[in-house]
């Protein structure tokens, strides 16, 4: 996090996966294998940022329900995980719907 401030101020420049690249068949195949998919933001010590939909195991701390936001960082003794309340199921669904609408109308998705 210490390496991020300059880049993090300009959210638009953070590489992020377009919703339209999600493959429904892949999502279904993951579910069949006992896995799930989550939108994950990653930052490394070099200040590189990335936001993408990732395959996540059910037992991963990242497999949080939509009413939770989770962030973590590596420590020598393990992964330090913080969990907080997120915007909730309805507002998450509304935001996704907005993304889909934007994608369908060809508008840039910045959120």
């Amino acid at each position: 996090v210490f390496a991020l401030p300059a880049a993090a101020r300009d959210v638009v420049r953070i590489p992020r996966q377009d919703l339209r690249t999600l493959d429904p068949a892949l999502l279904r195949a993951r579910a069949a294998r006992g896995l799930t998919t989550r939108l994950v933001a990653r930052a490394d010590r070099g200040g590189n940022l990335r936001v993408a939909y990732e395959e996540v195991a059910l037992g991963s701390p990242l497999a949080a329900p939509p009413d939770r936001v989770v962030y973590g960082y590596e420590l020598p003794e393990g992964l330090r995980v913080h969990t907080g309340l997120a915007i909730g199921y309805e507002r998450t669904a509304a935001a996704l719907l907005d993304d889909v609408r934007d994608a369908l109308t060809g508008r840039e998705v910045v959120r």
Partner: protein
Amino acid sequence: MSAAITLPQGVLLCHLPAEFALAHGGALHGASLAYERQGPLDAPVVVVQGGISAGRHASASAQVPGPGWWEGFVGDGLPIDTQRLQVLSFDWLGGAGCSTASAAGESSPFVGAEDQAAALAHLLDALRIDRLAAFVGSSYGGMVGLQFAARFPKRVAKLCAIGAAHRSHPQASAWRAVQRGVVELGLQCGRGREALALARQLAMTTYRTPGELRDRFGGAADLAGGRWRAPVQDWLEARGGEFARDWLPEQFLCLCASIDAHRVEPAAVAVPTWLGSFVGDQLVPPADVRELAAGLPQLRGLREIRSRYGHDGFLKERLAVGALLREVLA
């Protein structure tokens, strides 16, 4: 309770509902349950839980090679055979593992055995497990198993409760009340860890039998540095110190009280049930387990095992406890 935890390699985590309501009032916010799975993921699932100091790691496995709390009972070819069963174990809410618990200096909402059972139900939902092949619980784990079977009878095919009854014996509660009093006094004096070590020393004397302590520490006391020191003290202090390194006083207070608050109506445990008790157990006397057995609608077996280890017989009596487990899981 804190929503920040540190997860060692290999720990799995289940997020509980944002507001996890507790049976005795209050709620945990943003809580999570740490757990471990061992054995084939497509095999019938057996939940294995031990006493308050036992956690998610029941035995060594390829994924998590360190020794667990129930070595010799869980593993390939052992009574709980991980070649044909999947073992699921979790860290207690409120305890010293990686599940949500109090941080130092935090006041903690009370977590009952029925709350642990409710948390397990959420874990099963998250893992898409409809029904357990069995719940095997010892000591506090047995209490939680009874609570789980009473509340979610359709979600478990068999229950095996060892060294656990439908309520705590008043004498055992008295000993634990003294332990909590010691820890609370220690916290007030800013010496919580030392107090916790002392409380654990007292607890150790209740887990074992007078016969075992006589055989191991029957020598004469020594006078050293102007103070009398009994042979048993080295052992007590080592066990107390070990416990106080791993636990916060607040966590001990939470789970210790949880044992005393446990109470379940035997008639409500409408699941095929096997019970085990230990002759000489000072905490859960066989008479209490017989009383539970008499009230169970589907009692399948009751074993009274003679053990010089008393309540800790579930950790030590491999042959007798193993035979009971094989019968349950046949």
